[in-house]
């Protein structure tokens, strides 16, 4: 059996912004973990908020940090943050201009198909539900990650300029809580990335090459 001919998949803009994010985000997280170590708790010094935080009072191992000391962490974080924001805006601009957002945005009508898809993955449903370019679960994931990116930026600004943007800081419950939400976004990013990479490798490894070259060679799913 021969492979189907390669098809064009992932526009140059998508590939560029995808890989820029893949580079910038680990740098932002590592420098953020460096910054966290200067005050590794949330809330008032004497009386931290009772928020779940397995790393309370801890600093992260050296391999996970970028910057070497607080000032170094801050300089890395602030240098990488703007390219991260711009990359996100370029990606969203691309989706808006090309109308691609239609195949990616999770809408209420995707709820039922998402459930069907989940049942299929859990082997509680025999047939692969019909789908467009992306299935409803993918839409959910790709919508959620954009929302997460926006939240990480918004909470970041809330703790960067808590006086000048006090309305934004107040929206997240004040400086101390905004700092916590900013920290929480890190772990959701990490969780998403682990799942994302695992699914690519297990379900559709050919898409990895397509994300690099722009050409998809193979059949979907790759291992059927």
């Amino acid at each position, binding site marked *: 059996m021969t492979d189907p001919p390669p098809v064009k998949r992932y526009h140059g803009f998508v590939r560029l912004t995808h890989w820029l994010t893949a580079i910038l985000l680990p740098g932002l997280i590592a420098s953020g973990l460096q910054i966290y170590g200067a005050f590794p708790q949330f809330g008032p010094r004497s009386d931290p908020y009772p928020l779940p935080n397995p790393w309370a009072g801890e600093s992260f191992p050296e391999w996970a940090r970028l910057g070497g000391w607080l000032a170094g962490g801050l*300089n890395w974080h602030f240098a990488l943050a703007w390219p991260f924001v711009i990359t996100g805006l370029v990606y969203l601009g691309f989706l808006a201009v090309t109308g691609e957002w239609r195949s990616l945005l999770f809408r209420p009508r995707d709820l039922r198909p998402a459930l069907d898809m989940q049942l299929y993955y859990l082997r509680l449903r025999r047939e692969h539900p019909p789908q467009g370019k992306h299935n409803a679960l993918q839409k959910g994931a790709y919508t959620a990650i954009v929302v997460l990116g926006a939240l990480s930026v918004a909470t970041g600004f809330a703790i960067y300029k808590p006086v000048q943007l006090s309305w934004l800081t107040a929206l997240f419950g004040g400086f101390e809580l905004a*700092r916590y939400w900013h920290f929480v976004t890190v772990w959701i990013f990490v969780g998403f990335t682990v799942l994302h990479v695992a699914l690519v490798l297990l379900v559709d490894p050919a898409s990895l090459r397509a994300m690099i070259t722009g050409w998809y060679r193979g059949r979907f799913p790759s291992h059927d």
Partner: protein
Amino acid sequence: MTDSLGVSRRDFLRLGLAAGPASLVAACGWDGGPLLEPRLRAFGRINDWVGEKIFLSRSRLAPEYPISDRTAERLFPAYSITYNRRRIYPEPPRGWELEVNGLVRSPQRLTREMLAGLPRVSYTVKHHCVEGWTAIGTWTGVPVSVLAGLARPLPEARYLRFDSFDSGYSNGWDLASAMHPQTILAYAFNDRPLARERGAPLRLYSPVKLGYKLTKYVTTMSFTRERHGGFWEDQGYPWLAGV
């Protein structure tokens, strides 16, 4: 514009190229090394510019808190360079006076009594430390803008610098932040004269800056043409530090 920021397009490109491998190896608490670390600092000047020209409002006031929200004083950290080195707080020089000088028409020397007689501002605000903690306290003092009004800076004055008797601690400031109505030279904390560890007899205070910009043990406030760095700023901390 490139010149005033000290960053060229080539620097941007280099930084971008380096950011990739740098963050992939995220490795090992790397500050960027001798090659990149200065680039990162140069990039920081863009953030300083954005922070001053775009984010900073000359009239927006930091929120004030009720007195009941004050942080217990023993939990409101205080430090000084002299204390860190020698376990004693710096002693004001005999006959201490505040000097206001540099690029001004009429340089001033002010005693504590003269400062106490000038218009005063008092507020209960949140202190933001670069480390990530906050604390609330009440500060009382003379607005820096009032002192500028007395000294009358010359048109070529573009920055301020504050010097201290704390082992050479100093800070350079942008004029916009310094002239903010809540930027004061404070002589009282929580309704009492400044304690030794808080920077007595006079310290800079402002809720629109991080704590390390708030020079304690102030001796001199001078208007300058050049941008002065500061104790932490020269070691790599962001210069503007506006919140």
